[in-house]
């Protein structure tokens, strides 16, 4: 597939010589494996952050619908802070402050997963809260009238219905996470983008490796988008 891409891009550059782009993929060919290895890092990073962010977001959502005011205020303040700060700032903060404050030499990957989970939790909690509030109040009353306690009621009755309704929104959140994951390249995690930059710097060819990772990101985002559309279609069908 890559060779196909290579030849078609060569042909592309042949026919558009006007643009004076002499794309030469042969020089970075030996490093292709290294770049592609970044896919694993990027995906690991995205899925870890998405899953941790989902659980944290669920807890925050429960805080925000809680009648216990301190929990409510914590949830609201937390969301406000994370939504109101640029991700790159929180990311750098965690990466540089952790060793200074705790003495623990945190890796870029770890700092990234922590920051992204905490940040994604703030966004996802809003989605989940809306999902919970959209579940008919009668469901809660039916559960209460049967003597079902808060925790099983939430886990078995309310959340499954809430999450079914917001599944497409959750997939969209993971798409945003996947794209934002490129930020970890700034703190040394060897994700796709970072690897492309490393190879570029070594070989003095910047355009080609970046073009390759751009295509890879696009394909990954498209796969997730199609999955989201398919989910939405299935959910609509099941009513």
């Amino acid at each position: 597939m890559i060779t196909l891409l290579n030849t078609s891009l060569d042909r592309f550059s042949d026919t558009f010589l006007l643009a004076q782009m002499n794309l030469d993929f042969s020089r970075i060919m030996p490093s292709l494996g290294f770049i592609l290895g970044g896919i694993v890092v990027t995906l690991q990073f995205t899925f870890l952050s998405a899953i941790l962010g989902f659980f944290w977001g669920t807890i925050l959502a429960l805080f925000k619908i809680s009648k216990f005011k301190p929990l409510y205020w914590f949830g609201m303040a937390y969301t406000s802070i994370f939504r109101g700060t640029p991700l790159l700032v929180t990311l750098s903060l965690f990466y540089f402050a952790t060793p200074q404050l705790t003495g623990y030499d945190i890796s870029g990957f770890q700092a990234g997963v922590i920051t992204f989970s905490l940040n994604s939790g703030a966004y996802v909690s809003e989605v989940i809260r809306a999902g919970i509030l959209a579940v008919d109040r009668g469901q809660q009353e039916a559960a209460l009238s049967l003597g079902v306690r808060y925790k099983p009621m939430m886990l078995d009755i309310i959340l499954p219905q809430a999450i079914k309704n917001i599944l497409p929104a959750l997939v969209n959140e993971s798409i945003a996470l996947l794209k934002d994951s490129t930020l970890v390249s700034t703190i040394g995690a060897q994700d796709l983008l970072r690897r492309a930059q490393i190879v570029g710097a070594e070989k003095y060819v910047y355009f080609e490796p970046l073009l390759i990772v751009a295509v890879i990101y696009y394909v990954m985002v498209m796969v997730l988008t199609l999955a989201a559309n398919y989910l939405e279609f299935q959910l609509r069908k099941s009513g």
Partner: protein
Amino acid sequence: MMQPQEQATPPAIQVDRLYKSFGSLKVLREITTEIYKGEVVAVIGPSGCGKSTFLRCLNLLEMPTSGKIYINGEEITNPNTDAMRIRQNVGMVFQHFHLFPHMTVLNNIAYAPMKVKKVAKEEAREQARDLLGKVGLGEKADTYPSRLSGGQKQRVAIARALAMNPDVMLFDEPTSALDPEMVKEVLEVMKAVSDTGMTMAVVTHEMGFAREVADRIFFLDGGKIAEDAPPSEFFTAPKSDRAKQFLEKML
């Protein structure tokens, strides 16, 4: 109605000067009554007079503003009482069914006994099947609620409440959301439940059912039980003008 030896056992439901307000809106103003074991009480009255509120106070879905409620002699309005434990004993059937849409019919019924009473899975499912048979839906066990008609949904909801083996069953307009042709099947199931000796409080607009099945009629008006009489008396000789007007509209 009340045999002498029953006086020793406490009423199934006892309500003592119950008040309930929503903000400045006083919905219930001093309700005092007793409902005995095995009695069926039909609660009727004009729209918005507080029938649902009254019923919902009986299982603490609404917290009374003041007054006391006893179920089988235990005060449930005591702040130290565990509302969840009380509710296990007081089944409720809602106008809009509120079945759990993501569970099969069988799981709808078996869920609470398993989760709340820790009944073993097989036993709970066996009992659920049994109850489904009793409400005439034995073949619908593995269906999802969205596939059922309104009448079938309500019968499942009744089975779901019965699965907890409650001492008291509350029905809040159980047939009001149904197409006319489905009302009968639900009323028949309710009559069968009353025949088992269940204590029931039923908010209803079905005067035929109230007349036939209820032992007593509560006519709610002005936040009070304005009339409390056997159906034979209430329907033929209502005491108040309000009740007369109400009956004229209903019949």
